[in-house]
C-alpha cells in the first residue's frame, strides 16, 4: 500500500506534516520549516574495505551481463559521476544505453549517495518509481532485467565460482564459496562507499552567492517543496511538465524497449502511448501519468544532462524551466507556479546547486577484469 498511498513525512517522525496537495496547490509563502531540513548527510559506518574491493571488481566486470558485453560501469560511468554524460562519440547523451539489442528510454541516474536513498524515499526507486526500494533487490533486478544486464543469477553464481579472484574474495569476506548473493552484497558495499565527501554545502565552505542561493532554494524559488532533507529529494512522484524526449518514439530501438517495459508492468494499452507514463506504470492511476520521482540534487556538477529524459543540458536551463513554472501538461496539473526570479537570483541558485557537489569528484580507478575463464585444473577431483 505504501506505493499507492504515499505519505511523505510520517516515517521520519516529523510532526505537523503538511499534505503534498495542500502545499503544492497553495500560493502562500513557502516556509522551509515545513520540510525536512537540508543538511549534511548523516554519518554512516563505512563498508568493509575488502568487500568494497570485491564489489568494485564486479562493478567493472562485463561478465555480469548475459552476453558479456556490458558492466554496471557502462551506464554508471565513474568518470561521469556514476551516470552517463556522453556517448561513445563524446557527444552529450540524454538517454541511457541499455543491454545490446535494446536502448533505454530514460537518463541514467547517478549512483553516488545511493546508500541514503532508502532513508529518504517513500516509494520505489528509478525515475518511474518502478524498481524496488532496497539496494540489494535493485542490484538483483538490474542484473537480471532483460534490457539492463540480462543475466541469470545462477549463471552469475557459476561465473564467480569459476574465477579464482572471486573465489579468494568470497573466502576472505564471507568465509564461504562464491554465490550471486555474496556478489550482490559486495556490490552494495561498493555503492555504499560512493558518498559525497567534500561538498561546500557539507563542509561549510559556501560562497556568499551560494548562501543566497540556498535562501532562494528554501524560500522564493520553492525548490525545497520537493528537494528536501539531506538527500535533497522527497522521493516522491511529481509532474513538473518536463517535455517529452521524442527520441523515445522516433528511435525504434528505444520505443520497443519502452513498450516492453510498460508491457511487463501491466500498463494498459502499451502500444498507444507516445509519452513516458512515469509513475502511472506503478500506480495505474490516471492522475499519475507524467509523474517522476524527485531526483537528488547532490553531485549535479558531474551528472548532466538533467531530468528523467535528459532533455536539459545545463543547470541554467533547469532553473529557467522552474522559473517559468515548469511545463504544460493539460489536462493534468503541473504542480508548479512561475517564480519571477531575477537574473542574479537564478545565478545564485545555480551557485548553490553547484555547492552540493563534491569539490573533488567521487570516482574510482577502473578495474581491468580479465574476461576469460580458466578451467578448474583438477576438476574431476574436486567437488563442484
Amino acid at each position, binding site marked *: 500500500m505504501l506505493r499507492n498511498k504515499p505519505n511523505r513525512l510520517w516515517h521520519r517522525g516529523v510532526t505537523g506534516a503538511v499534505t503534498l496537495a495542500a502545499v503544492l496547490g497553495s500560493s502562500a509563502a513557502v516556509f522551509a520549516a515545513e520540510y525536512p531540513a537540508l543538511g549534511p548527510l548523516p554519518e554512516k559506518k563505512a563498508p568493509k574495505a575488502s568487500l568494497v574491493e570485491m564489489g568494485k571488481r564486479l562493478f567493472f566486470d562485463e561478465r555480469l551481463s*548475459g552476453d558479456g558485453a556490458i558492466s554496471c560501469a557502462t551506464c554508471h560511468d565513474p568518470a561521469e559521476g556514476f551516470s552517463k554524460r556522453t556517448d561513445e562519440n563524446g557527444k552529450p547523451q540524454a538517454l541511457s544505453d541499455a543491454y545490446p539489442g535494446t536502448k533505454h528510454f530514460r537518463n541514467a541516474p547517478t549512483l553516488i549517495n545511493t546508500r541514503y536513498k532508502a532513508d529518504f524515499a517513500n516509494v520505489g526507486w528509478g525515475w518511474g518509481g518502478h524498481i524496488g526500494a532496497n539496494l540489494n533487490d535493485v542490484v538483483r533486478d538490474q542484473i537480471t532485467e532483460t534490457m539492463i544486464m540480462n543475466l541469470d543469477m545462477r549463471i552469475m553464481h557459476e*561465473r564467480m565460482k569459476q574465477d579464482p579472484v572471486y573465489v579468494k574474495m568470497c573466502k576472505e569476506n564471507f568465509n564461504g564459496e562464491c554465490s550471486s548473493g555474496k556478489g550482490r552484497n559486495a556490490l552494495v558495499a561498493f555503492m555504499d562507499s560512493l558518498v559525497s565527501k567534500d561538498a561546500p554545502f557539507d563542509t561549510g565552505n559556501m560562497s556568499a552567492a551560494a548562501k543566497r542561493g540556498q535562501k532562494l532554494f528554501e524560500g522564493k524559488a520553492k525548490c525545497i517543496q520537493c528537494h528536501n532533507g539531506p538527500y535533497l529529494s522527497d522521493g516522491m512522484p511529481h509532474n513538473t511538465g518536463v517535455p517529452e524526449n521524442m527520441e523515445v518514439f522516433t528511435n525504434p530501438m528505444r520505443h520497443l524497449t519502452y513498450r516492453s517495459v510498460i508491457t511487463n508492468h501491466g500498463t494498459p494499452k502499451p502500444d498507444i502511448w507516445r509519452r513516458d507514463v512515469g509513475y502511472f506504470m506503478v500506480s495505474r492511476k490516471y492522475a499519475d501519468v507524467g509523474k517522476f520521482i524527485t531526483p537528488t540534487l547532490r553531485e549535479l556538477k558531474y551528472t548532466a544532462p538533467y531530468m528523467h529524459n535528459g532533455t536539459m543540458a545545463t543547470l541554467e536551463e533547469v532553473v529557467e524551466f522552474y522559473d517559468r513554472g515548469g511545463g504544460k501538461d493539460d489536462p493534468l496539473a503541473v504542480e508548479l507556479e512561475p517564480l519571477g526570479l531575477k537574473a542574479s537570483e537564478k545565478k545564485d541558485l545555480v551557485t548553490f546547486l553547484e555547492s552540493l557537489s563534491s569539490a573533488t569528484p567521487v570516482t574510482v580507478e577502473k578495474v581491468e577484469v580479465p574476461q576469460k575463464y580458466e578451467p*578448474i585444473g583438477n576438476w574431476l577431483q574436486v567437488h563442484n
Partner: protein
Amino acid sequence: MKPTEKILNLLMLVACAGLAAGAAIVLAAGDPDVDPPLAPLPAVPEPPDNPITKAKAELGAMLFFDPKLTGDASLSCGDCHDPKQGWAFADPISRGYPGTVHWRNSQTVVNTGFLGKLFWQGNSNSLEKQAPTANKGAVAGNGEDDVMEARLRQTPEYIKRFKEVFGTSQPNLGHAWMAIATFERAMLTQKDTPLDRYLKGDKSALSAKAVEGMNLFTGKANCIECHNGPMLTDEKYYNTGVSRPVEFEETGMNQITFRWENYAKGVHEKKYREWKDDAGLYYTTKRDKDAGKFRTPPLRYVAFTAPYMHAGQLFTLEEVVDFYNDGGGTNEFTERYGNKTPILQPLGLSDGEKESIVAFLEELSGEEIIMPIPKVPEYGVMPDVPGLTQAQAKRIGLETYLSSRGQQ
C-alpha cells in the same frame, strides 16, 4: 487420403505383421519391445490447431533466421541450426548464447515434424513448445517474452504478415512460435530419400552395399532395436555408456555451463557437488536409474549432422559404428547406478560389415536441404496514434478502461 497413401499404409501394415512374426528371430532374450520396421516417411503430421499454410511457413522462415527473438538480438535459430551445418551445429558441443556455451550437441531441425519428443532430454513434445524453450534458455537464446514481442511489434513487415496469417492487429509471440513450427514442418521435411524410395519398392534406390548395411542394421547389428520406424528412432531413453565430453574437464566456460545446468535443473546439492557428467533424463524424472539416459536420436539426414551423440563425443559415423560394435561404453552413471542398457552387446562386425552400415546411413540421408535465407525485416518508427497527449488518451477511453478495473 490419396490412393498412393492408401497403398503405403497397406504396405506398412504388411511390414509390421512381418516384423512381429520375425522379431523373435532377430532378438532372443532380453528384447524389451516389438520394433516397428523401417518405413517411408508419411505425410508430416499437421496439428489441428496449427494448420500448415504457405504464408505461415514463409513467416516462420523469416522468424527462424531473425535475431530479434533472442536476448541481445545477435543470433537466430539459424545460428545453432545452420542450414550449412545440417541445420545443426558442427562443433561437438553447440555454441551458446554469447558469453556462454551450450552443453549438448545441436540437433538437426530436418524432419523434426515427425518427433514427439524433442531435445536430447526429450523434454518438449511439440515444435511449438520447443522453439520458445530454445529462444529463452539462458545458454541458448536468452530472450525474454516482452522484449522479443516488442521487437516484432516494432517491425512493419511483421505487423503486416502476422495480420495476414493470424488476423491480429499486432504480432503475438505465441503466434511466432507457431509460425516457426510450421516452417520446420512444411519446409524442412524430406521427401523421397533413397531409403523412402527403396522401402516403397524401388530396389535400385539403395546401392548393394547400403542394402547389405540395412540388413545388418535390422539384423546382426541390431540397430533397429532403438532406431526403428519411419524416423529411425523409438523415442525412448537409454544410457549407452557414451563417455563424458572432454570439454567439461578442459574448458572453463563449459564448466560454468555444466554447473549452471545442474543448479538450474534443481538437482540435490549432493549431486550438484559430485556429478561430473550430464545426467540427461534424470533432470526430468529425478530418478537415479535414469541418469545418463538420452532419447534415441533419429537417423534421417545423419550424414549431414556430424558430430554425433548428445555432446558430439564421436566425430564420424565410423566411430559410432565402432562404438556399438564394442557394445557401447561406460560412463559415470553406468558405474554409479549400473544402468547401462543391456541391449548393447559386442557385435563382432567385420570391417566390411561396418562399412556397409555406414554406407546405409549415408545413403538414407538423401539430398542436402539448402534454401535461400530470407532477408531480416527492419524496425520502423511507429506512426502517431491517438494517445499522444493525455487529453487524447482520455478521448479514446483510457480513463473509462481504468475505472472499469477499479483503478481510477
